[in-house]
């Protein structure tokens, strides 16, 4: 309960935290209402499916439940919970059959959550919303109690009758107490509302271990492949660039030495060229080193490094970075690589007039998005840097989403796990 301690220790943050929690409780209650309406629909579908006429409805229903669960997952992540997506396939359609979908433990866990959230989650949410309203109503009660009809002259949500002036004066006292309760209790209520989701929406802790091992093995293989690709890239860059330059220097110096006696002026010319070539070689070495782990990242952090990228971009580019702590170096380097590749694409292909880079740390995941108002149509298949982005992000167990309809705009979203 570190959050509660933090709240008590810093009194300026208390009201802000209560407001934030109530906001999330409202969001949670909205999802709860959707869940509540979904319950009877599910029941009808189940009954109809039993008599076979409901079969076409079943998969869309399950997909809708997943949509709701995903909504709750994103809410929980914003609240700071780490919720991994438990699904193995991208969609319910990937399941071979309805029976398969129902046998899937994730579907059953989603359905249990749906029931819990439609009842418990909704009630807790309503309580959290009710508290501040009750507090305001009761504190101001003496001002207006005479104007309402006698059968409504009550305080504390109608639990105590207050039809006399002396009774009405209890209102503000009760209101302040409720307000204090709200201040302290709102984050707690928010936690209570989140509990079913936290317990049920992540991967099942008892799930078949071999499946998780298989998934990890696949991502490790992707990581190794990404490393191999990276090494090949570095090898090529070194060979085609710096190494050739340095061999060139050896040749030029050899030629110059032969000319020293025969024609000193010519020797000097050749040496000048050799010097230029060494400088080129150094520049190329620096470029290669930069591409491995950009020193700018080391010196100026992610925000500074991304700003530098944006200012180098030929398209005007706005950068927003909301990352309070530093992430692991490999995650930062990957985020940097993603933005660098994306901005290169923007400058080369998009014909955009402006671009925007956003990087946020939410719930232990680094969210990177690069958008532009260009002509769209970006496709990983036609050799742009997108395939490279995909490989490198996948190696970090991250996700890439590219939205780029013909005519634009293009948006590249990347999520990277940033846990220590």
């Amino acid at each position, binding site marked *: 309960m570190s959050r509660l301690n933090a709240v008590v220790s810093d009194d300026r943050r208390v009201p802000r935290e209560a407001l934030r929690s109530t906001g999330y409780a409202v969001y949670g209650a909205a999802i709860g209402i959707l869940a509540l309406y979904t319950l009877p629909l599910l029941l009808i579908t189940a009954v109809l499916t039993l008599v076979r006429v409901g079969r076409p409805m079943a998969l869309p229903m399950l997909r809708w439940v997943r949509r709701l669960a995903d909504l709750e997952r994103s809410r929980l992540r914003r609240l700071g919970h780490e919720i991994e997506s438990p699904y193995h396939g991208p969609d319910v359609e990937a399941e071979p059959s309805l029976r398969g979908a129902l046998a899937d433990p994730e579907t059953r866990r989603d359905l249990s959550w749906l029931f819990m959230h439609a009842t418990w989650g909704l009630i807790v949410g309503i309580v959290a919303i009710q508290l501040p309203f009750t507090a305001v109503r009761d504190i101001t009660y003496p001002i207006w109690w005479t104007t309402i009809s006698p059968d409504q002259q009550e305080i504390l949500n109608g639990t105590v009758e207050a039809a006399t002036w002396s009774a009405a004066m209890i209102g503000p006292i009760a209101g302040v107490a409720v307000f204090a309760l709200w201040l302290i209790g709102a984050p707690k209520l928010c936690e209570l509302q989140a509990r079913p989701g936290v317990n049920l929406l992540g991967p099942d802790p008892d799930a078949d271990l071999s499946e998780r091992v298989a998934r990890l093995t696949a991502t490790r293989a992707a990581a190794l492949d990404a490393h191999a690709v990276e090494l090949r890239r570095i090898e090529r860059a070194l*060979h*085609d660039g710096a*190494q*050739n*330059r*340095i*061999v*060139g220097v*050896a*040749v*030029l*110096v*050899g*030629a110059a*030495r*032969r*000319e020293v006696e025969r024609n000193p002026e010519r020797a000097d010319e*050749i040496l000048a060229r050799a010097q230029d*070539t060494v400088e080129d070689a150094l520049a190329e070495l620096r470029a290669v080193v930069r591409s491995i782990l950009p020193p700018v990242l080391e010196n100026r952090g992610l925000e500074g490094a991304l700003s530098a990228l944006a200012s180098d971009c030929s398209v005007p580019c706005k950068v927003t970075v909301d990352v309070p702590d530093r992430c692991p170096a490999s995650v930062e380097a990957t985020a940097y690589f993603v933005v660098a590749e994306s901005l290169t694409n923007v400058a080369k292909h998009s014909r955009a007039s402006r671009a925007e880079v956003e990087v946020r740390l939410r719930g232990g995941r680094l969210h990177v998005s690069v958008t532009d108002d260009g002509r769209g149509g970006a496709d990983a298949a036609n050799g742009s840097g997108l395939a490279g982005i995909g490989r490198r992000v996948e190696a970090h167990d991250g996700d890439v989403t590219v939205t780029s309809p013909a005519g634009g705009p293009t948006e590249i979203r990347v999520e990277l796990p940033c846990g220590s």
Partner: protein
Amino acid sequence: MRIVIAEDDTLLREGLGLVLRGEGFDVVASTGGPEAFLAAVEEHRPDVAVVDVRMPPTHTDEGIKAAVEARRAHPELAVLVLSAYVEESFATDLLAEGAKGVGYLLKERVGRVDAFVEALQRVAAGGTAIDPEVVAQLFAQRRSDDPLERLTPREKEVLSVMAEGLGNAAIAQRLFITENAVHKHIRNIFFKLDLAPDDHTDRRVAAVLRYLESA
């Protein structure tokens, strides 16, 4: 001596031209890719071709393939292959077509102009010039059941210098031994590698090939 250069890197192409012209060679064409190189060989009929291993389009072994092709069309053409790194399979590919008038050197050797010119002239005269680095790597990978394992360290040393293309006198000078001793070592090498004296093939070339091919 008329020379055609094939090297895709502009700087190195020009540097090579600079060195060779400075030494009085006649560089009749400088090309940047295999097709242009083969066309230039057809057109100019040079004495020697100086060819880079990595060339477009894939930058793997286009240079070797082009050199082998040029040699098939013009067996009298001497070829000196330059490589940025040691890859003995390239050397053996090249030598499989015959070891006369073939050289394989690391690119930076061009900077040691005296030695480079000497190697070039040796290749042009029908000899061989194999980079000491390549030779060392071939020895390092030698299998234990190899007939070459029967050679004494000194004999191996003589063979490796022989593989670079040096004659008896030069070998003696390099290893600080008498020419007579060199002669004795070489006779032992031939014996241990089962190269009979009445054979019509050039036993020196055969010995070098034996040890390059079994890599």
